């Protein structure tokens, strides 16, 4: 029980952060023509920020882009497999059998980071406690954002649309400033993405694939030219 409480406590700051990010997701989903319950259902079943925003773009583009949706989610969320892998090395014997299937659902960037920061191997109760509030925050933020999207006047809604990009910039810039390799990778990815927006022919590629292509090329370039050294502090 102590473990569960500790997990809950450590989950509070994550939940508060999620509340605001998912608020913008709910808002954007409603702006894109979804109902509030659809937005909440997406948040409840996915619990991932970048993947949901990219998924939303594809959904609002219309039906039938199944393969594109699968590829996009795969590329954007592939980082979770590395986190799952790392976390699987840090679990105590209580996390076995069905617990592995359940806990895997809640592995997000922040939950992973907090779990890895724990001094001991983590137990199943700790992980359930840690996952609880962030998922609750993620879903209720989505609901609030969707409600706000239906109530707020247009001029405020359009200004709020920039929130998620502001947040992305806040994630990218600090590490890019300290680590030249991250900076180069981001610049490559952004330049490619601009080419896909404005160059003829390239601008006919749909948004989901653009993200995949840009990100994979940039990350491969990073991996070739700036490989991560073993156990090196990467300035993150």
């Amino acid at each position, binding site marked *: 029980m102590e473990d569960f409480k500790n997990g809950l406590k450590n989950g509070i700051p994550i939940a508060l952060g999620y509340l*605001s990010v998912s608020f913008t997701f709910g808002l954007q989903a409603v702006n894109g023509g979804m109902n509030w319950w659809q937005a909440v259902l997406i948040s409840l079943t996915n619990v991932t920020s970048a993947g949901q925003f990219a998924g939303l773009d594809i959904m609002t583009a219309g039906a039938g882009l199944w393969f594109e949706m699968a590829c996009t989610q795969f590329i954007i*969320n592939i980082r979770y497999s590395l986190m799952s892998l790392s976390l699987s090395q840090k679990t105590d014997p209580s996390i076995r059998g069905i617990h592995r299937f359940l806990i895997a659902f809640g592995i997000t960037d922040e939950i992973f980071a907090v779990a890895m920061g724990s001094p001991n191997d983590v137990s199943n109760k700790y992980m359930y406690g840690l996952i609880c509030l962030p998922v609750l925050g993620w879903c209720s933020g989505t609901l609030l954002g969707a409600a706000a999207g239906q109530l707020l006047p247009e001029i*405020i809604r359009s*200004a709020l649309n920039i*929130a998620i990009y502001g947040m992305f910039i806040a*994630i990218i810039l600090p590490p890019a400033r300290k680590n030249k390799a991250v900076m180069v990778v981001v610049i490559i*990815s952004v330049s490619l993405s601009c080419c896909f927006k404005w160059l003829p022919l390239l601008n006919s590629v749909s948004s989901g694939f653009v993200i995949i292509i840009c990100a994979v090329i940039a*990350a491969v370039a990073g991996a*070739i030219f700036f490989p991560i050294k073993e156990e090196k502090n990467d300035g993150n």
Partner: protein
Amino acid sequence: MEIKSFFIYLIIMAGVTYLIRMLPFVIFKGKITNTFIKSFLYYIPYAVLGAMTFPAIIFSTGNYSSAVAGLIVACVLAFREKSLLTVAVFACIAALAVNIICLYI
């Protein structure tokens, strides 16, 4: 969008995302040692966020001037390592301020 299409999308999204998280957690025991794969996975989140943010941010507010104002505010605050929430809120305020000014010009 049709309800049926929505649920197909939802199942694909949630299914792929869950499998990515679950399979390595349930199956693998060893550590990744391949430097290329490790490096690729390290850079991927930044590359994805970069491609998602630019140039989309310019079109996010329906008005170039307010979007650029929000972008500049976001960059300055992020550069100073303010929290995600602070950066997002002030980017919105800047965009809203410019939107309001544009109404009266």
